[in-house]
């Protein structure tokens, strides 16, 4: 195994096991050795994230392990992100994310952000308790391909319909795909509120997002 392969293996293992400290250290070491940022991202970190997502879907790991892997990824991404942007690497698409007004739950949303960023999306997180007009403004100003809205409660899930109405009233509905997520969300709710789809968990968010914007 070459030193480069060893390094990529080390980064993969660090993200997979959620060792944020080590993920950052190996990322720095790789960059110091002249490894391309995109190589670190696509050949080590993303495969690790995909593997943890796969293990989550099959019930081999649970939320704690997912969260620490995402956290390790985020740590390394703070170093890589500006380098990748500076290198002019094209993103797969632009994703605006937020937890709806009246709701503060963000564990699932934050996991989705990491998975999406890992999959090459530019993710802009509007945070929690996001008023409907803020989603509308973000669509107008940032022109994302996809907007993701998250709600944990049946009461706050009512915001999905209100926000989509606002987006329609602003004449922006046909410019953006809308995904919803959170505990009360299922296909029936997607149909009721007029969204384009939903992801039952963070690991499937990437698949659903790629599918609604016509990527395989």
């Amino acid at each position, binding site marked *: 195994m070459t030193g480069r392969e060893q390094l990529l293996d080390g980064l993969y293992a660090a993200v997979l096991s*959620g060792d944020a400290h080590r993920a950052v250290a190996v990322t720095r070491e790789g960059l110091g050795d002249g490894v391309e940022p995109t190589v670190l991202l696509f050949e080590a970190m993303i495969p690790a994230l995909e593997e943890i997502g796969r293990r989550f879907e099959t*019930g081999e*790991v*649970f*939320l*704690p*392990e997912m*969260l*620490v892997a995402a*956290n390790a990824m985020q740590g390394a991404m703070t170093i890589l992100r500006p380098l990748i942007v500076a290198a002019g690497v094209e993103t797969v698409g632009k994703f605006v994310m937020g937890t709806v*007004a*009246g709701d*503060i739950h*963000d*564990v699932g949303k*934050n996991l989705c952000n990491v998975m999406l960023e890992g999959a090459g999306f530019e993710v802009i997180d509007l945070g*929690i*308790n996001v008023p409907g007009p803020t989603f509308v403004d973000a669509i107008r100003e940032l022109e994302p391909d996809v907007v993701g809205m998250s709600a944990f*409660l*049946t*009461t706050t899930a*009512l915001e999905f319909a209100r926000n989509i109405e606002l987006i329609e009233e602003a004449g922006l509905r046909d410019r953006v795909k809308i995904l919803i997520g959170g*505990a*009360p969300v299922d296909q*029936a709710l997607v149909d009721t509120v007029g969204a384009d789809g939903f992801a*039952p*968990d963070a690991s499937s968010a990437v698949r659903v997002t790629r599918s609604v914007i016509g990527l395989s």
Partner: protein
Amino acid sequence: MTMTSRERVLAAIRHEEPDRVPIVLGVSNATGIKMTPYRELKLRLGIAAPDDYLYAWPELGTAAIDEETMARLGSDVRGVLDLEPASVLEANRARAPHADYIDSWGSGATEIRPGDWFPMVCPLRSATTVEELEEYPWPDMDDPTRVAHVAEEAARLAAENRFAIMATPWLLFPLERAFALQGMDTFLMNLALRPDFAEALLWRIQERCKILMGHFLEALGPNVDIIKIGDDLGTQESLLMSPDMYRRILKPIHADYIAFIREKTEAKIFFHTDGDVFPLIDDLLEIGVEILNPIQTSAGKMANLEELKARWGDRLTFCGGIDTHRVLPGGTPDEVRAEVGRVIEILGPGGGYLVSSVHTVMNDVPAENIMAMVDAVQEHGTYPLGRGAP
């Protein structure tokens, strides 16, 4: 033969068929009704009663249901609750409007828009060492104002001997408290990355919980039928943590807690745990859980009521099962009645089932659906089942 509510509940928990399936509503947050539907209920029923809150805690938003409404709902239990220390209640009453609500643990809630409070004040969010836990100002569980009212209330209910007495101290739950102190995501990460620290925090919380639980049970004396504890272990689709992690870290804590309670009371152990906890039911039974709540039918394998009843129905009493996810907020009264009938038909045979909503009846539930739920119990829940109303 008509039974008293208390006889009805106790028979069901003994896995005998009482005269009808008991109803558990309004005695805790998890079996409670939020203020908006409670007001609508009172209006509908022509009942004039004050808008009081459970635990004297408006920010929680769950109504303390008046006796007339409890009777109309047919609730077969009455609750005995603890309170935050008088000094904490007073400090919160006297604080600036819309300022954070801070409880005796130092954690608290922020008002993100008028009337909507969420647990966002997490004083141990950045803690990662046992030393930080040692330095933390843990709450005084010996403050007598927490339980000063308990003995008298429980004795009154026992003297009346009409309703089953359910003791529901507020959140003496180790995992939930750890979430409140650290934030859910932070504590879950600590479980994975710093299991020794996470375990130390849980045991530290447990120590405080046991002190207050001890005082609470002492004040209750023999005047209690059910004691509610719990910890949310499930998500919509599976468990919050691996079964292995639960068994390694949290199960010994829950076992220790239940053993501690068991030494002091004969009351039945009512364990509240949201989400799909199917893979842990054998573990919960093993450590002494007798009543499982809230049977979240919208979450994963908990939808499979037939299997729950077949596998555990002879040893475990189920409390809950009426969906607050879609049916109660979004269904018609007819749909609510049909769902209550369906659930009773599966969980009701042989006793061992107490009807309740899956967690709190939230502000999006119309009062007519609450009435449809309780009226359907009279209609479908009379034993022998399947014969309709008497």
